[in-house]
């Protein structure tokens, strides 16, 4: 069971990763190019060597990095899809949904909130040129701490809702209690964790466009994973039952 869902998760994740990679390639890359121009112009203004940020790192040309984008989203897809498949194997019997299709969609939605959306609202994506290289250690730690805590919030929200349902609490009261509780916990997390990097004089419009294309990339990934994984399982379930 675990091996089956692991394989299907990796396959679905690879396809979803490629899909969001193409989106990022066509809609995100022009914004990244714009951000790198701003970064280089700023570095020139401050009469620093271009090495301040990117200059010393020119291991790969920009066009190679754009191919690397597809590599990165595919690898992200395979690994996250594999983990998702095993988590699905564990939670499958515990979800209220009663078909493989709706189970897949509800678990990917939950994962989208926990892995991406809740952390993203606190630490939104930053283009090249925002955030200084010296703080990469703390920014990485904060981001992954936020991802872990968001996952804890999502899983405990689900667990509490399940317990309250089992105790026979009425639906409106239960949903209000659960929604309010999770919003309060997320609010506390947002104010307790340190702020993200200050974009300084980076153009606000370009920053917004970048964050929007980053959001789009992740939405496409999780939607793609839910749909493809659900479709695969649905197909095998139908085959098995005929």
């Amino acid at each position: 069971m675990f091996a089956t869902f692991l394989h299907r998760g990796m396959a679905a994740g690879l396809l979803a990763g490629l899909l969001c990679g193409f989106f990022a390639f066509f809609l995100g890359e022009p914004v990244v190019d714009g951000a790198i121009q701003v970064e280089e112009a700023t570095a020139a203004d401050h009469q620093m060597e271009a090495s301040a940020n990117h200059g010393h790192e020119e291991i790969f040309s920009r066009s190679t990095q754009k191919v690397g984008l597809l590599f990165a989203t595919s690898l992200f897809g395979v690994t996250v899809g594999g983990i998702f498949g095993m988590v699905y194997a564990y939670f499958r019997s515990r979800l209220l949904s009663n078909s493989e299709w709706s189970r897949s969609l509800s678990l990917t939605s939950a994962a989208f909130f926990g892995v991406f959306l809740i952390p993203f609202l606190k630490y939104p994506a930053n283009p090249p040129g925002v955030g200084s290289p010296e703080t990469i250690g703390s920014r990485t730690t904060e981001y992954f701490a936020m991802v872990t805590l968001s996952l804890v919030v999502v899983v405990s929200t689900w667990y509490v809702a399940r317990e309250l349902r089992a105790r026979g609490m009425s639906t409106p009261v239960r949903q209000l209690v659960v929604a309010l509780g999770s919003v309060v916990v997320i609010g506390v997390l947002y104010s307790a964790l340190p702020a993200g990097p200050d974009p300084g004089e980076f153009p606000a419009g370009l920053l917004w466009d970048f964050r929007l294309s980053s959001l789009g990339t992740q939405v496409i990934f999780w939607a793609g994973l839910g749909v493809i994984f659900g479709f695969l399982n649905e197909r095998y379930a139908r085959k098995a039952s005929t």
Partner: protein
Amino acid sequence: MERSVSPKAISLGEIPWWSWLVLVLLLVVLFLALSASGDLLAPLIGKAAYATDYLHEFTHDGRHLLAIPCH
């Protein structure tokens, strides 16, 4: 209707041992692909960390667009 039957619940103890190994392996690959960089790892493992900059630079645009902190 046959699909509305809930599948059998798997308890934590019934999770196959190898899936924990696979989980760790996948997390390591994910970290190398999306977060490892010389500047990040140098304080921990020294100069050898800069070897990961090849991966860092190759996956650079993907890291930024997937919203992961990148230098």
